[in-house]
């Protein structure tokens, strides 16, 4: 099995995403997709990504996300059960297998479709049919594709393509963090978040409020402040945590 995996070229470009790569690896197990070993498949995938990384190939983020998820799945399958966990690792493994089966089935179906006797390649209609007298006076023809392609064409022609976002002046999160960190030590009791806003400048008020709110959340996460609010949309209070 290892040798099969080795023969796969390390050309990440050749795969249409992680699921495609997983399907190719699963196929290399040379068993029915319903009988593949998910653990072995996870090993193969992680090994593949490791080798690609060792060769310093650039790997798209979705491959790494899949690698992280598969690593998680592997540990969940191997570690003692957590009965609370929903869905169970077995369920997740089954879903992965089902997705591979489904993709595999559609790939095969596509190949079988393409191999059929196709009109214009294998079977033919008359090359120059004479056509029938039409029931209506003139038979104007157009397909739905023509219609929507035409609208796309008009929209593309008339729609501005460039979108320029004006560089707006804002109060940055860093500035708000600095300001609240500096002020919070001096306050003893709860203060509203608005009381931390810089004076004056009505122009930047909304931006300052948004940044200060984020800064307060960040400081709470760091365990430096605590937050209080009576009800939704009620004033938000901040106090240093001691």
């Amino acid at each position: 099995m290892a040798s099969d995996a080795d023969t796969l070229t390390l050309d990440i470009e050749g795969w249409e995403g992680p699921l495609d790569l997983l399907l190719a690896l699963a196929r290399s197990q040379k068993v029915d997709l319903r009988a593949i070993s998910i653990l072995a498949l996870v090993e193969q995938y992680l090994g593949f990504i490791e080798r690609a990384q060792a060769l310093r190939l650039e790997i798209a983020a979705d491959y790494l996300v899949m690698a992280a998820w598969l690593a998680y799945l592997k540990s969940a399958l191997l570690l003692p059960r957590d009965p609370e966990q929903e869905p169970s690792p077995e369920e997740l493994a089954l879903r992965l297998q089902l997705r591979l089966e489904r993709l595999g089935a559609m790939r095969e179906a596509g190949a079988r479709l393409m191999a059929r006797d196709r009109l214009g390649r294998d079977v033919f209609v008359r090359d120059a049919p004479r056509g029938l007298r039409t029931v209506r006076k003139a038979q104007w023809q157009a397909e739905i594709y023509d219609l929507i392609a035409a609208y796309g064409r008009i929209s593309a022609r008339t729609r501005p393509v460039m979108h320029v976002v004006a560089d707006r002046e804002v109060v940055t999160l860093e500035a708000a963090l600095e300001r609240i960190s500096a002020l919070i030590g001096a306050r003893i009791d709860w203060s509203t978040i608005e009381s931390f806003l810089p004076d004056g400048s009505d122009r930047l008020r909304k931006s300052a409020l948004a940044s200060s709110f984020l800064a307060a959340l960040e400081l709470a996460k760091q365990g430096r402040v605590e937050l209080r609010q009576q009800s939704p949309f009620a004033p938000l209070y901040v106090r240093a945590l001691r």
Partner: protein
Amino acid sequence: MTPPDEFVRAVEAVLFAAAEPLTVEAIRAHAGEGDVRAALARLTGDYAGRGIGIVRRGDRWHFETAANMAHLLRRDREEPRKLSRAGIETLAIIAYHEPVTRAEIEAIRGVQISKGTLDVLMEAGWVRPAGRREVPGRPLMFATTPGFLAHFGLESRRDLPGIADLKAAGLLDPVDLAMMEADTALEVAKAAETD
């Protein structure tokens, strides 16, 4: 009637699929070695009394509908005609924006439309006058018909793909845009010439 042998079947298929009447040599070039004349004689017999048949015109052979079937087919035959680009664009604008006036259509298309364009759409039964807009000049508005929905297999106008769908399908590609603009410039130039 005994079933035809392989060679007769081949001659039959070749004659059927051909774009024009074929000589015996041309038939042989496709059907392979065999007695083409005998096969043609056999086929002529097989099709006697049917709705279609094999006929000889000079030294060429072809399939034709039987002569006494002509009344079903020949009378007032009109070529199916494909809608012009101006026609399909105008129809698309009406479908997406109805009801619209002619001036609005021109504003969206960025090009004037000729009177014939709307006439064709109405003749096809896809577009109808839909009242007048209550602005100075009271211009006529246009909208699509149930026949339009039927022809394009739509249940309602809401089934038309939206701008986001078009974009996702690659129908709003900026690359095309450059090409289209070139086309439009050409069209305008041509229109100016013919005026």
